[in-house]
């Protein structure tokens, strides 16, 4: 444990030291510390994951914190894994990416300092077992990430996004503080273990507390309708930070939820259904909005919401399995959730890095302005194809592995004879398919429009090839994707102990069955890969001594004058958006003169966030209106002020005489 803690300390000091180093070495220094972090964290983590068990150490604080256990159990270990891996990738990537901001010394120092703070706080968070300590670290995490989000704070929109993010985090924290305070008050201790009997007492209070916890952690994780900060914060932040936040930090919210679930003996069916429904909603909502986006990073942010929904679905299924006492369902649900947490971390890092590379080269994130990047940035483009396939949950790649476990969980669930359960599972079964195909729509749009075809705007001519600092993390992530995607049976056993932690009975046999299924899948998919290769070679040999002419796109003889004639992203998704127009409200601004020979028109369509437009904004407006009613009290008239006091005095006197 001391080893682990020292690792946390290492990355923190890394942040501090990089403040004092010369500008061009800051990144390198931070990278060195990040690598050191791996050596301290990973051995412990893998030991826990593979052999199970837990290590803990006791910190003694004075009142009011009191004693605080730091515990590393398999669940924490999973998150420690992605955090440390994320730190490493982030460090590598930042070196090249932050060259965009060379010359801003103080900003860069704060960037690395807060990155160190963020990573170390996340790492510490998953250990803390004491309510106040947990909350303290939680808030430190929020604040440090806030400073990272508002890195380019000279831009007003970035400032806005930062403040919005901070406010959202405050609301979430309010729920958490309330939940923790009430729970600890009624349990009489701040230690998590003491919460068990409170949360398991079968009265409305425990349910309420769970709801509060869910709201608090859900704000961080980005469950609908608490997600609105995500699509604002991610585009604002530097790409490395967006990756770190979307890949790792929002997972801490899920960690919290899972931690609370671990405290429940058997989660109530009602809660489980609630989580399934909300997650389904989140996923559909997220991907539907992602489809509509034109900003690359905003799109990725919404897709994070979608993936959070999928993970939540897995969790919900696991909880249902527990509450109906069907371990074979629960194991699949939780396994799927954990797998998808890992997978989403991997491909979301990949995609954000890719988006960042595009931004750093082309200096735009607007999909409609991009195109034909595959000719300019071949390496990135080919790697990103894998990334997009993976995030759309295509077989061969890791996205499918996680989702398949969730599918299997539902299929197992069909065998339970319970009307409610059947309906839920069928609906979510079809729903997940719907989400999958929408993901295909979304990411074919991104890849087809941005990377294929012809450029839709003038790029600056000398776009250099990607540097090694860009290639390295992409390569690492691709290898991970392929390994998990092609050989899931090798990777899965690592997560056995985690799942075991949730299902208290021994599920070794079920697990071996699952492994067998995954072997079948990897066998099939590898065969599939072989056949693809075969057909490609066949094509090659067929064409070897034939003439292959390069010509402009035939297009039924219709000759394209300029690249602006290509299909745009918005036109690609327009038919689908018409089908779901209610879910993604479009704001269309069209002015063209209605004369016989119109000169010049203007058309602009941008989509708004449903819950922001119909839930968040009205709430803010009403609160403002309420408070503005009292604006007159500070009128500057002294006698009025004295009168307040006298009136209040009289009121008190009246009260005294009455009582």
């Amino acid at each position, binding site marked *: 444990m001391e080893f682990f803690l020292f690792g946390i300390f290492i990355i923190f000091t890394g942040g501090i030291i990089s403040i004092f180093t010369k500008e061009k070495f800051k990144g390198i220094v931070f990278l060195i510390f990040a690598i050191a972090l791996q050596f301290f964290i990973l051995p412990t983590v893998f030991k826990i994951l593979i052999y199970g068990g837990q290590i803990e150490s006791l910190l003694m604080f004075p009142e009011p914190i009191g004693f605080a256990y730091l515990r590393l159990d398999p669940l924490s270990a999973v998150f420690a894994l992605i955090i440390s891996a994320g730190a490493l990738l982030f460090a590598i990537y930042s070196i090249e990416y932050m060259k965009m901001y060379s010359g801003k010394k103080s900003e860069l120092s704060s960037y690395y300092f807060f990155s160190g703070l963020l990573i170390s706080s996340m790492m510490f968070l998953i250990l803390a077992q004491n309510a106040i300590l947990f909350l303290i670290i939680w808030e430190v995490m929020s604040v440090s990430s806030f400073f990272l989000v508002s890195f380019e704070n000279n831009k007003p929109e970035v400032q806005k996004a930062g403040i919005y993010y901070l406010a959202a985090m405050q609301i979430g924290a309010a729920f958490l503080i309330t939940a923790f305070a009430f729970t600890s008050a009624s349990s009489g201790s701040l230690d998590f273990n003491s919460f068990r009997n409170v949360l398991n007492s079968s009265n409305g209070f425990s349910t309420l507390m769970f709801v509060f916890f869910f709201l608090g952690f859900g704000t961080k994780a980005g469950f609908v309708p608490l997600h609105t900060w995500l699509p604002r914060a991610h585009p604002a932040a530097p790409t490395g930070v967006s990756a770190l936040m979307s890949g790792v930090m929002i997972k801490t919210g899920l960690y919290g939820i899972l931690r609370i679930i671990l405290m429940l003996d058997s989660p109530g069916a009602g809660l489980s259904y609630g989580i399934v429904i909300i997650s389904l909603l989140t996923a559909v909502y997220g991907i539907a909005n992602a489809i509509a986006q034109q900003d690359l990073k905003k799109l990725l942010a919404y897709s994070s919401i979608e993936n959070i929904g999928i993970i939540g679905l897995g969790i919900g299924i696991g909880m249902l399995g527990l509450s109906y006492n069907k371990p074979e369902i629960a194991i699949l649900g939780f396994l799927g959730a954990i797998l998808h947490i890992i997978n989403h971390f991997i491909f979301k890092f990949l995609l954000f890095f890719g988006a960042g590379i595009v931004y750093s080269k082309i200096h735009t994130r607007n999909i409609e302005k991009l195109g*034909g990047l*595959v*000719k300019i940035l071949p390496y990135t483009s080919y790697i990103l*194809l894998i990334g997009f396939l993976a995030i*759309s*949950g*295509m*077989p061969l790649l890791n996205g499918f592995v996680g989702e*398949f476990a969730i599918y*299997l969980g539902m*299929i*197992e669930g*069909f*065998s339970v*004879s319970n009307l409610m359960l*059947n*309906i839920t599972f*069928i609906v979510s*079964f*079809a*729903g997940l*398919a719907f989400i999958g*195909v*929408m993901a*295909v*729509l979304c990411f074919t749009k991104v*890849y*087809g*429009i941005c990377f*294929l*075809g*012809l450029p839709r705007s003038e790029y600056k001519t000398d776009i250099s090839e990607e540097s090694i600092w860009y290639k390295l993390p992409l390569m690492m992530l691709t290898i991970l994707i392929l390994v998990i995607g092609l050989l899931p049976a090798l990777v899965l056993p690592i997560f056995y102990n985690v799942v075991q932690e949730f299902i208290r009975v021994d599920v070794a046999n079920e697990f071996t069955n699952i492994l*067998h*299924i995954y072997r079948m899948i990897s066998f*099939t998919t590898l065969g*599939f890969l072989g056949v*693809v290769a075969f057909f*490609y070679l*066949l*094509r090659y040999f*067929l*064409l070897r001594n*034939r003439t*292959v*002419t*390069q*010509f*402009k796109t*035939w*297009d*039924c003889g*219709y000759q*394209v004058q300029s690249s602006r*004639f*290509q*299909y745009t992203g918005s*036109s690609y*998704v327009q*038919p689908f958006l018409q*089908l779901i127009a209610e879910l993604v409200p479009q704001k269309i601004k069209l002015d063209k003169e209605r004369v016989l020979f119109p000169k010049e028109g203007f058309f602009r369509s941008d989509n708004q966030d449903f819950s922001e437009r119909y839930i968040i904004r009205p709430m803010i407006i009403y609160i403002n209106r309420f408070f503005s009613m009292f604006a007159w009290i500070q009128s500057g008239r002294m006698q009025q002020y004295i009168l307040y006091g006298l009136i209040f005095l009289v009121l008190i006197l009246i009260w005294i005489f009455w009582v």
Partner: protein
Amino acid sequence: MKFLIILILIVSPLFFTGLINKVKAIWAGRKGASVFQPYYDVFKLLRKGEVISRTTSFVFKVSPAVNISAMFFALMLIPFPLVGSLISFPGDFVLFAYLIGISRFFMLIAALDTGSSFEGMGASREITFSTIVEPAFFLIIGSLALLTNQNSFSTIFEMLAFSSVYTILVKILFVVSLFIMILVEGCRVPVDDPDTHLELTMIHEVMVLDYSGPDLAFILYSSALKMVLISSIIANLLTPSSLDVGPALLIFVAILLAISVLIATIESLIARSRISHVPQFIFLMTALSLIAFGVITFFLHGNYK
């Protein structure tokens, strides 16, 4: 045995296409080309060179191969009455759907790769309709799994016997909706018209406008195979499991033929509907599957209520 059937099915798809054309010709009062015409076309294409757009990239070249091999492996997962499928494991139908999905993915980006507005339009329509078809298909398979309490293609269809009135009803509903799925995925009237190449209502054909030579051959073949896949699911639904192997397989093949004939008939009798009306038509599939699901739940939970 399995291998034999799969072999047959691997060579047969183009035959079904030919059959459809033949029947259509007969409906039109023409003599029509030979049933094996599609084979001649494909072989001709395989022997030709290619014209490839300068705009395109690696994706454009690889996607036909991905497409065709995806269909092959989907075929591996399809069971046959009393014989079962080549590869079978719990949840294999999910993999089946996702294999079709990956082929779709590649076809879409290949279409966008040409940078032509025309093919982009086709891709956009293709995926829009798939977003409706896909959940419905999962609804069907899911409800079947629920009904039979099984978790893989082959076992599901083993368990499906003409046991009760419910199952018959369910089967009919599913058959109809799956048939709609064929029309959509196979780009048939009233969703799409495979005969034309130059109409703004085109969906599938327009996506592959820029393909030529072997690639086009692959595509033609795999789209034919896709139809066979789905119709063989229908056939599975309809084949009575009380027979022994020989007759069962015969009925199986007969149903496949019948489906192609039916498609041809519809195509010759009905006009293609406006593109804006297509979604409603596809939603019919979802609706039917939902009804069927309702029937199933009633069947499962109604008796003890």
